[in-house]
């Protein structure tokens, strides 16, 4: 049987605020909706601050155990176990902090009216935990499972730059820039991963 406790799921730390991602969708190979669990120590981030504008996803968070405080477009919402926070509007800025020990939150999401496709950020979050060369290999092996996204090519550019593959990094960054120039310019401006190729004559973005 495909049965597992949230605490036994793989734990992938994301960002610098204690967020623990517990992948469910990829664990079971779910293809019809997005779903993951998150855990955190008291006071730590249990939902990363973000909006869903890029993906256009409608989301639902369910507090399975413990207690969390959600902040939704600046409003604080107390969410004890059993609370559902539903975000039909992708533009709402959302985050949550764990308020009790053993807080576990489930997220479910997808774009209304469209067949689900896995979110490219799964590749980036996993890659960030690996050595750059391994991350490149992992992403290139799995990127066909995800929609072709600027985010994925940008992440590949970063990992290739970090692993010393300037040619590969330039090619990926150029591809990302063609797909979504506005976001890529912003991501690249603040990402030290790309420092080794910034002075390359082929660097596809203008200096900021």
């Amino acid at each position, binding site marked *: *049987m495909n*049965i597992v406790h949230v605490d036994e799921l793989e734990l992938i730390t994301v960002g610098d605020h204690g967020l623990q991602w517990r992948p469910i969708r990829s664990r079971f190979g779910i293809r019809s909706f997005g779903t993951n669990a998150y855990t955190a120590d008291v006071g730590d981030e249990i939902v990363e601050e973000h909006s869903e504008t890029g993906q256009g996803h409608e989301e639902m968070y369910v507090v399975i155990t413990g207690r969390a405080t959600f902040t939704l477009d600046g409003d604080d919402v107390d969410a*004890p176990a059993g609370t559902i926070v539903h975000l039909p509007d992708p533009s709402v800025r959302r985050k949550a902090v764990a308020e009790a020990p053993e807080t576990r939150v489930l997220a479910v999401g997808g774009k209304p009216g469209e067949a689900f496709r896995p979110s490219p950020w799964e590749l980036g979050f996993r890659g960030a935990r690996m050595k750059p060369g391994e991350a490149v290999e992992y992403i290139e092996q799995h990127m066909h499972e995800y929609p072709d996204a600027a985010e994925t090519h940008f992440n590949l550019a970063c990992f290739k730059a970090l692993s010393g593959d300037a040619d590969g990094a330039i090619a990926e960054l150029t591809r990302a820039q063609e797909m979504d120039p506005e976001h890529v310019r912003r991501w690249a401006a603040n990402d030290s991963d790309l420092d080794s190729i910034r002075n390359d004559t082929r660097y596809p973005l203008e200096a900021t």
Partner: protein
Amino acid sequence: MTAYNVVSLDEIERVEYLGSNLIPVRYTLGFRPAGTNAWFADTGGQLVPPHEEDAGSEELYVVVRGRAKFTVGAETGDAPKGTVVYVPPEVHRTAVAEEDGTVVLAVGGRIGEPFRGGAWDSFAIADAHRRAGRTEEGREVLRQARDEHPERMAPVYNSACWEALAGNTDEAIEYLRQAVEIDAKGVRPYLEEDTDLDPLRDDPRFQELLA
């Protein structure tokens, strides 16, 4: 569009369905990306009604409160709160509560297709409204289900059953006509056997549909 909704699983009115207590999350919130509902039971009570999903429909169950015993195919599994169970398409599954106040969340969708609401859970909610005497609320739920799936026989057929049980023969016959138009072969076994339609069986118009 509302920017956000916050609701507790305890606040949503429960609906009896096939011997289980359904907490209709999807309908209550208007959640669009996936089928999302919860089941409630006390010790020994049935949580997830025994069933299989169609080819292409996968489901995930999450124990939010209490403790459940899942049976999936030939296997059983102990599932305290925080447990996640994935069931692939076409596999038989059910779950029973092992503690009072157990709640299991169920999320489902069809692989490669956009999710659309307005199916079995809507029919269960409409029936609950009818039994509670909330006729207009029940009709509205069915109307939404028909609008969501104009090509499908089930919402029209369930509207017929609903009107028959509510004592509205003319409306019931009209929905049955529409159901026959959409899928004459598919609706036939139901016309012959469904006890919901018993109030209509002596009506000559019903006999005509059967002929």
